């Protein structure tokens, strides 16, 4: 009993910081409809700025409170600046571009933070008054955590009062329910958006600084918190503050008890809960915002390649087949990478183009393929062809299962869930050291056989891409596009959109898995980084660079992006900063979507 109570309190205190951050994310989304990927960075900045302030202040409770508030205000100011300079330009763009641009912001902050604060974790020494324990149910419980527990409900009550009782709150609710009507009634959305963004950022900053005495400020906290906050916001219902509170309690308690009961499977448990909630209530516990489906840009039909283009393509394949005889090893290696990237991009393109689904976690399938291959090779001592076959099979089967849960969701919900799932695969790869070797990875995954590995890659790439292109042009492809264009109409002519999408999920996952398997043999190793968010974003950028509306797009994108990336890696150590700025610039320069290829005059 005592144990249960203590774990319960631990869960409560653990949920507070998550609640603050998620509440910020959810109010921002409610008013601006922007899913702010950089929200985790604001949380991280809260921790770093809080550290800088608190280490300089006298160690007594009042100064601590003052320091915490100052840090939150500083982050709020940063949020306001971010909104007026960048986010304001994004409101009219498709959600994918908003996600990408704010992801760019996150990359930039990730590189800038160590510049300002150094690369090391910064722990905050707990002052004496915070160090104490209180005896509850005969067990010691940290005094700070007990104080923290009170903060959650206080902030929730404050936010609810603000929303329910003030004129400002009324405007927020009006915009959350119906933006266009609120605008038509003369609500100044620009100012409101700036204020709400500052409020949301301040809440994230508060979450960041409050977590300091329990951990330390570090450069990984942005990503880990944004994934958890996504889960909370999706489970609670987008735009609902109370929903965020309930969901973070749920997640906090799951973590507190999960760590005792199923230490290895906590993340999986969270995902299962999320899947259950969303299959019962697709808009989350308290969500009511009807979400538009994916932004319909000017869609054009997919056309099979022209004769000339096809001849050119086969010519290129024949030329590449002779490459091992005349291309220097380094460039052969680059070419191999480009081919693998093209498979990955085409896989994602099937989902995003004809499927009309955003995947922000395609690295999951890439990584599952890579681990599937490597483990088949290592544990079953299978030959390379069999190991390569395992890649699409493993990834495809798991993608089909996952797809079955999520295909009914649309737009941002789907994007967030795919991201969350990829993070779970990543965490599993990192933590299940006995199977995956953790961060040390699996080494010695070398190709074998009489034929140079390059030919394997070329052959499988051509087969995979041709198959994907044929699928898009097939009966199934036409039906899939129909379901994307108009779900009610698709249903009314007897199509089953959910099933069509699930199969697209599986096919896309399998192809991405094949890319992962090839990449494992190409590098001779598999690491958790193959499943990291960066890999998913690589895929997105390749597809967007090349254009979503054509079959050749993802291939062109893969070539261009791999080139750009290698260039950045070679010329600068601050590649995140460079990549982040590039993404932001691309999104701003091509506001109608790179896919459309139209440039604003």
């Amino acid at each position: 009993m005592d144990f249960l109570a203590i774990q319960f309190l631990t869960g409560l205190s653990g949920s507070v910081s998550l609640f603050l951050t998620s509440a910020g994310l959810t109010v921002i989304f409610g008013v601006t409809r922007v899913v702010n990927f950089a929200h985790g960075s604001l949380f991280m900045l809260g921790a770093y700025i809080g550290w800088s302030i608190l280490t300089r202040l006298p160690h007594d409770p009042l100064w601590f409170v003052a320091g915490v508030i100052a840090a939150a205000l500083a982050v709020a100011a940063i949020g306001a600046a971010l909104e007026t300079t960048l986010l304001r330009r994004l409101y009219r763009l498709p959600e994918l571009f908003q996600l990408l641009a704010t992801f760019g912001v996150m990359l930039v902050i990730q590189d800038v933070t160590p510049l300002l604060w150094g690369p090391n974790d910064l722990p905050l020494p707990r002052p004496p008054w915070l160090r104490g324990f209180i005896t509850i149910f005969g067990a010691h419980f940290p005094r700070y955590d007990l104080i923290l527990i009170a903060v959650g409900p206080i902030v929730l009550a404050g936010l609810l009062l603000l929303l329910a009782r003030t004129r400002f709150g009324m405007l927020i609710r009006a915009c959350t329910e119906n933006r266009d009507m609120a605008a038509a009634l003369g609500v100044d959305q620009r100012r409101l958006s700036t204020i709400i963004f500052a409020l949301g950022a301040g809440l994230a900053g508060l979450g960041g600084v409050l977590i300091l005495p329990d951990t330390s400020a570090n450069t990984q906290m942005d990503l880990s918190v944004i994934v958890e906050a996504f889960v909370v916001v999706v489970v609670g219902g987008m735009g609902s503050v109370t929903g965020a509170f309930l969901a973070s309690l749920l997640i906090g308690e799951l973590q507190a008890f999960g760590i005792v009961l199923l230490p290895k499977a906590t993340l999986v448990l969270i995902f299962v809960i999320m899947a259950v909630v969303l299959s019962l209530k697709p808009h989350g516990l308290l969500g009511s915002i009807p979400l538009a489906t994916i932004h319909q840009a000017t869609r054009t039909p997919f056309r099979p390649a022209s004769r000339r283009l096809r001849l050119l393509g086969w010519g290129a394949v024949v030329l590449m087949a002779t490459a091992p005889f005349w291309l220097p090893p380094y460039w052969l290696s680059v070419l191999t990478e480009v081919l693998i990237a093209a498979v990955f991009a085409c896989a994602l393109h099937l989902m995003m183009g004809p499927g009309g689904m955003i995947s922000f976690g395609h690295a999951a399938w890439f990584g599952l393929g890579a681990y599937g291959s490597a483990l088949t090779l290592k544990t079953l001592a299978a030959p390379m062809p069999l190991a390569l076959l395992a890649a699409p099979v493993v990834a495809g089967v798991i993608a089909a299962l996952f797809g079955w849960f999520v295909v009914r969701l649309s737009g941002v919900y789907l994007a967030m869930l795919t991201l969350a799932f990829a993070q779970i695969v990543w965490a599993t790869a990192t933590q299940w050291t006995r199977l995956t070797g953790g961060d040390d990875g699996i080494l010695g995954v070398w190709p074998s056989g009489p034929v140079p590995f390059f030919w394997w890659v070329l052959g499988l790439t051509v087969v995979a891409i041709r198959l994907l292109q044929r699928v898009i042009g097939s009966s199934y492809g036409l039906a899939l596009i129909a379901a994307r264009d108009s779900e009610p109409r698709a249903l009314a002519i007897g199509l089953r959109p959910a099933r069509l999408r699930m199969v697209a999920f599986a096919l896309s996952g399998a192809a991405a898995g094949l890319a992962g398997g090839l990449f494992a043999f190409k590098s001779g190793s598999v690491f958790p980084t193959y499943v990291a968010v960066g890999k998913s974003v690589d895929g997105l950028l390749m597809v967007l660079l090349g254009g979503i509306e054509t079959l050749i797009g993802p291939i062109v994108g893969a070539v261009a992006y791999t080139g750009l990336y290698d260039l950045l890696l070679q010329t600068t150590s601050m590649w995140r900063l460079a990549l982040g700025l590039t993404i932001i610039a691309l999104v701003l320069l091509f506001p109608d979507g790179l896919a459309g290829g139209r440039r604003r005059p």
Partner: protein
Amino acid sequence: MTLLSVRKLSKAFGGNQVVRGVSFDVAAGEIVALIGPNGAGKSTCFNMLNGQIGPDSGEVLFDGMSIGSWSPDRIWRLGVGRGFQIAATFGSMTVRDNVRAALLSRHRAVWRFFRPASGLFTQEADALLARVGLTPLASQGCGTLAYGDLKRLELALAMSNQPRLLLVDEPTAGMTPTDRGAVTDLLLALARESGCAVLFTEHDTDAVFRIADRILVMDKGVLIAEGNPAAIRTNALVRAAYLGV
């Protein structure tokens, strides 16, 4: 012969009882209009007939089968075509591919992954397009069509399964008077030559009184009158609902 039979259908959204105990029949080959003032519950009633919304209570019988809890795709397979209030078509495709998608579904040819779809059911698609007068536009992108033509395309899609019943929600909403007349004529012609029954809602009373064999009148969620056009014109309850006298 009764084709569609609706028994005591009810639906509430929150505390708002939108449809209360509505019952009516549609015979095979009959053209029936469902009319009523805004907010009478017509569209909700409609959406329950083809599975878009599940009813709270009551029964929908099609050809003797209870289909109240069926999904739209199953209901379509029985032979129920649907036209939407705001034309729903596949915007990125050509006009012909729109119809082709419907035909693929009808002929259960959707789950084929490798043969190009572009050669399949072209003649059948073109025949359907000819019936609704869209032959010249067959290769055009659907996004370039005028609204009247989109409505025609919708009718072609709805007819693609040789339906026994067409459910059409406001076929002429948002159209110019000329287009309205043309689409109403087309609907009438399609119904007469194929022998399929039509149940449609409509605000344009000209169309209603011109083509309907029978008219159902809803007000505040309840069916208040039912009869042939002449009887409806003189019905006191209908006059009260529309004119307030």
